[in-house]
C-alpha cells in the first residue's frame, strides 16, 4: 500500500492504494465517488471516463498511482457552481440522451471533452468520437442529438423526437 494524493473535483484528496488499484476503484471505493461506473474489463465501454488534467481518460485503464498529483474531474464535479446542470448535462436531459443512466457519466465526460476540443462538431465527428463509449439503451440517436444541441446547433430538423 502506498499513499496516493490528487485533486478530485477541486478538492485535495489522498488515500491508500495498492500498486494494482485502478483509478476507478480508488474513486469508487476509497473516495466513494460512485458516479464513475465500470461496464467492462477490456477498456471498451467508456462507462468509466473521467478527466485527468483536462483530458478524457478511461479510469479503468490507469492505476491510481499513475495520477499522483493530477487534477481529476468526475461526473460529480460537472454541474455548475450553483448546482445547476452543465450545458452538456442539461442537453442530455432536454433531449432524452439517457435511459438507464449507466453509460451516462462516461458519455457526459466524453461529450464535454469533445466540445472542449471541437466546439462545433458534425454528426459524423460526434459519432466517431464516441467510438469508445457504448450505450445499450438509447440507440445513440438522442445522445448525438444532445451533444449537437449542447454545441448550440439547431436539432429541430433531426427526424422525430
Amino acid at each position, binding site marked *: 500500500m502506498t499513499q496516493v494524493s490528487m485533486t478530485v473535483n477541486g478538492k485535495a484528496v489522498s488515500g491508500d492504494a495498492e500498486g494494482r488499484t485502478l483509478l476507478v476503484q480508488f474513486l469508487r471505493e476509497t473516495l466513494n465517488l460512485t458516479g464513475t461506473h465500470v461496464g467492462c474489463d477490456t477498456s471498451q465501454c467508456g462507462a468509466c471516463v473521467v478527466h485527468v488534467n483536462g483530458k478524457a481518460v478511461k479510469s479503468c485503464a490507469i492505476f491510481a498511482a499513475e495520477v499522483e498529483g493530477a487534477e481529476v474531474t468526475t461526473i460529480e464535479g460537472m454541474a455548475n457552481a450553483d448546482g445547476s446542470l452543465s450545458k452538456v448535462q442539461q442537453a442530455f436531459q432536454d433531449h*432524452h440522451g439517457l435511459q438507464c*443512466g449507466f453509460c451516462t*457519466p462516461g458519455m457526459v465526460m466524453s461529450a464535454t471533452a469533445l466540445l472542449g476540443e471541437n466546439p462545433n462538431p458534425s454528426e459524423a465527428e460526434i459519432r466517431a468520437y464516441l467510438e469508445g463509449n457504448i450505450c*445499450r439503451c438509447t440507440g*445513440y440517436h438522442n445522445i448525438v442529438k444532445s451533444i449537437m444541441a449542447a454545441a448550440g446547433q439547431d436539432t429541430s430538423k433531426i427526424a422525430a423526437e
Partner: protein
Amino acid sequence: MPKDGGIGAATPRREDVRFLTGNGKYTDDINVRGQAYVHFLRSDIAHAKINGIDTSEAEKMDGVIRVFTGADFEAVGSIPCGWQVTDRHGEAMQEPRHPVLAHGKVRHVGDPICAIVAETYEAARDAAEAIDLDLEELPAVVDMKEAVKDGAPKVHDELTSNLCYDWGFVEDNRAAVDEAIKNAHHVTTLELVNNRLVANPMEPRVAVGDYDRSDEEHTLYTTSQNPHVIRLLMGAFVLGIPEHKLRVVAPDVGGGFGTKIFHYAEEAFVTFAAKELNRPVKWTASRSEAFMSDAHGRDHITKIELALDKDNNFTALRTETYANMGAYLSTFAPSVPTWLHGTLMAGNYKTPLIYVNVKAVFTNTVPVDAYRGAGRPEATFQLERVVDKAARELGVDPIALRRQNFITEFPYATPVAVEYDTGDYNATMDKLTEIADLSGFEARRKESEARGKLRGLGLNCYIEACGIAPSNLVGQLGARAGLYDAATVRVNATGSISVMVGAHSHGQGHETAFPQVVADMIGIDASQIDIVHGDTARTPFGMGTYGSRSLAVCGSAMVKATEKIINKAKKIAAHLLEASDEDIELADGQFTVAGTDKSVAWGDVTLAAYVPHNYPLEDIEPGLEETAFYDPANFTYPSGAYACEVEVDPDTGKVTIERFAAADDFGNIINPMIVSGQVHGGLAQGIGQALLENCAYDEDGQILSASYMDYAMPRADDVPFYSVDHSCQTPCTHNPLGVKGCGEAGAIGSPPSVVNAVLDALNAAGHDVPHLDMPLTPSKVWDAMNKGA
C-alpha cells in the same frame, strides 16, 4: 393539447438529474458494513466430470474466509424454472436439476464450481488460483441437431436425451397444414438461423446478501427487473426462506433487456452465505463473467414454408424450429420459443392454417432465455423473411403482397390461439411510405450507384403480444406464477402522493411517466407525485418489468387504485360541501358540486382524511391509501411497419445503414419522448443483431465471444438518426389507458428489414442471393457477392 405534465406530454425525465450528476444508486454502489466479497471459480471446460476439488491451499491464504463447493448446497433447492411446457404428446418437458454450484459435473463454460469468500476481491481471486480442480473432460454437445441424435453425449445424465420438449402448435392443425402445403400453387421455403445474442445491459450483474440476526431477516440487493419474482423463486424454491423474512431490493438498475428477469445462482449464493458466515457478502460480475453467466438470447434454427394460392393469398404456414436452451433451464426459457413465438406466427396476415413445431434442446452452452422481444423477434424474422422471399420468387411488389394478406378486421382470432383486439396495418404501412420517403428511393439508389455503392431497400411488418398476460390463461399454458401487477397509491395529508408499484424502472422512465397519469386523473401537478419501486418491503406484490408490460399491466393497477382514491375523496368532499356524492365533480384538483360554484381543493380533502375532525366517520375510514391488483384480460398487440435502406460497398462487403424508418402503433401514448427513446434503443439492438452481434461457440463448447473485443456491440457510428413515428394509434380495448407497450418493438421489427435491404442491394446488382444468415458481416456479404470467384 396535452396538459402540462399530464398524459401525452413529452415531459423531461425527473430521474435524469441524479443520473447526470453521478447520484444514481446502483447495486454496486451499495456497500454494507462488514461485507466480504465472493469470487466464483467457473469452469473453463464445457462438459466435464468433477472428480475432485481441493480447496485446502486456498483456504489457508490471507484474507480468505471460506471456500464453498457444490457439496455445501446438497440440501438446498435447485434454481427453479418458472414455466413448464407440455409437449406434442401431452408429456411434461424434461426438467433437469440446476444446482447453485456445480455438483458432479460442469455443463458449460462459466458454470460456477467454487465460491471463494474473502476480505477483498483481490484475495478471493488470488485464492481461486490455488484451488486444485480435478476435471475429467467429456465430449460436449454444441450443435442442436447433433445434440438430439441417438448416442449424442448427454448434458444431463438423468434425462432420457437432450430433447427438453417437442412442441406442436396447434397440433390439431398439423394434418390440414401438411395437406394445404402439398396442394399449394406455390410454396416458398427458407432455412435460417436466428443468431445467439448476449443482452449486455451496460451494468453487469451485482448481488449483495445481508442477514440480520436480530430479526432473522435476509436482504438481497440485486440488479433485477422484478424483485418480487426473485423473492418468490429464491425464497420458496431454493433457500426455503418465508417471504416475510426475505427482502429483495433492486435499486437503480443499469438496463436489463430481459437478462435481469431471471433468478440466478449468484443471488442465492450471497443470500445463503450471508447467514452462513454472519457477514454481508457482495458479488460484482466482470464483463467477461457476464458473457459466461447472464442468460443469452435467441439461438434458433428454423425451416419455414409459406404456401400461396394462384392469386398470391397466403394459404398455409409451417415451421420447424430448434431452440437452444443451453445447459440448464433458465427462469422463463421454455416459454420463449413456444408461447411467445408460436402464438405470433400469424403476424399481420390472415393465413388460415398454421402449424409450428419447436424442439427445445439442451447443449453445453450458457442457458438461453428471454432477450428484448423474446420469441417475437424470432417469429417476425422468419415470417417477414419468407414473405420477402416469396415476393422475389413471384416477382411481385413486397408491399403489395403484404397488404393483400393483411388482417383488416378486428377483433381477429388467429389460427394460433390469440385474438388481436385492435390494429390498422394499412395505416402504419401508409405512414411508413411517407416517413421513409419510399418514392424517393430509386433516386437515392442512382445516387449511390454513381458513387460505386449498391443500395437496397428492405421492409417488414411486425405484430407483437405484450402486457403478459391473463393469469388464468398463462396458468393453463404452464406458467408457475400469476402475471398480474399491483400499485398502492398513498396520498399524504398535504396532498402529495407516493405510488408504490410492482413494475421496475431500469431505463424506461417510470418515475416520470407514471406520475403523468395520476396527475392527469386528479388534476394536480405531477411534481407532487413520486413513484416508489424496486423494493419488496415498500411495494405491493407485482411481477416486474419485461415484455413491454409496465404501463399496460402495472399502469392499469395504478389507474384502478387512483380511481378508488378519487371515489373516496369525492365522499369526503361531499361531506365537506354538504352535498351528495354523485354531485361531486373533480377537475384540476378541485372538487365541485355540479352546477354550483361550491368547491373544495384537493389538499383540503386530503387533510380532512388525516385530520378527520369534520368527517363522515360513520361511513368511511380516515386516511387515503388504496391498493389495486390488475390482471389483464388479454395481451396487447402493438404493430408496425419498418423500412431500412442500406449501402453495400462492393469492394469490401461492408454494409452501412443509410436510413431507418419505423411507423408503430402503440395505442395511446403517455410520454412521446420516452416512447421514441424506447424505439431508438430497440432499433439499435435489432440492427446490432442483423449486422454485428453474434455469440459464437467452437465445437468443443468454448465461448469465442466473451468480451467487447470479440462481441461486436453497436457503436454510435454503426447507426444513423432514425425516423420514428407513433401517430397511428388504435387504442387497446381492454385496459383503462388504451396503451399497448413499446419497449420491444424496435428490436422485434428491425432485423428483417435490415436483411431484406441487404439482399435487395445484392439482388438488384445481379447477385442471386436468396438468403444470408445474420450477422451480415463484411466477409459474409463479400463472399455472397463473390461466389465462385
